[in-house]
């Protein structure tokens, strides 16, 4: 039976002390959805890596970035929206490899979009659910 897609939004300042809030929120949502402990941990770590990069670089055009958690019946999709187009470059091939390799290894998909919106998206399926 298909469940309605739900969205939870979190807007955070570009400050290091609030990255843990993103992490705790992600872990609460993922656990609520039925991810196993290891996958909850993967989602937390991957999202933190994205937040770390945004916070380290900072932004001149806005004081916050917005994280959308989109809850599908069998997967979580996380969109990270930021106004400052420059920030997308942080996740390119010249970016810090340690953080990127962690995100790519832990999530099923990871994409950066710079067309009309500056958004990073990543997703992970719940194991065993169709």
């Amino acid at each position, binding site marked *: 039976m298909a469940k309605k897609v739900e969205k939870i939004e979190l807007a955070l300042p570009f400050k*290091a002390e609030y*990255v843990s809030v993103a992490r705790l929120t992600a872990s609460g949502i993922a656990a609520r959805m039925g991810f196993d402990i290891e996958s909850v941990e993967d989602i937390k*770590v991957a999202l933190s*890596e994205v937040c*770390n990069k945004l916070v380290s670089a900072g932004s001149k055009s806005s004081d916050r970035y917005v994280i959308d958690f989109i809850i599908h019946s069998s997967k979580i999709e996380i969109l990270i929206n930021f106004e400052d187009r420059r920030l997308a470059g942080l996740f390119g091939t010249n970016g810090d490899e340690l953080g990127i390799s962690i995100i790519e*290894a832990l999530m099923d998909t990871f994409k950066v979009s710079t067309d009309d919106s500056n958004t990073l998206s990543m997703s992970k399926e719940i194991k065993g659910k169709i």
Partner: protein
Amino acid sequence: MSSELKITEVKHRFNTEVLLSGEVDIYTSQMLKEKLYGILDDTKQDMLINCEGLTYIDSTGLGIFVGVLKKAKQYGKGIRISKLKENIKKLFLITGLDKLFVILD
């Protein structure tokens, strides 16, 4: 708060053990860096980083471990890491850092 980072230094005869507990993230990593670098500069001994109480680390924390290892090598010393939780050991495997460090159970 349990997520706070606590760093405890225990001096042994031939090495220094550093016990970490809590979370290392972008906010707490600077404190970890200052503490570990300071201990190395003071003791110039091998270091054992005991991670039994460490519940979370991100790439900034892993980067600091690498920096500490480089610094230890300058003194002709080594870094060993012990008692990693499975979720953290996974990050060492993903990043290949398991090959760089001596990791003990």
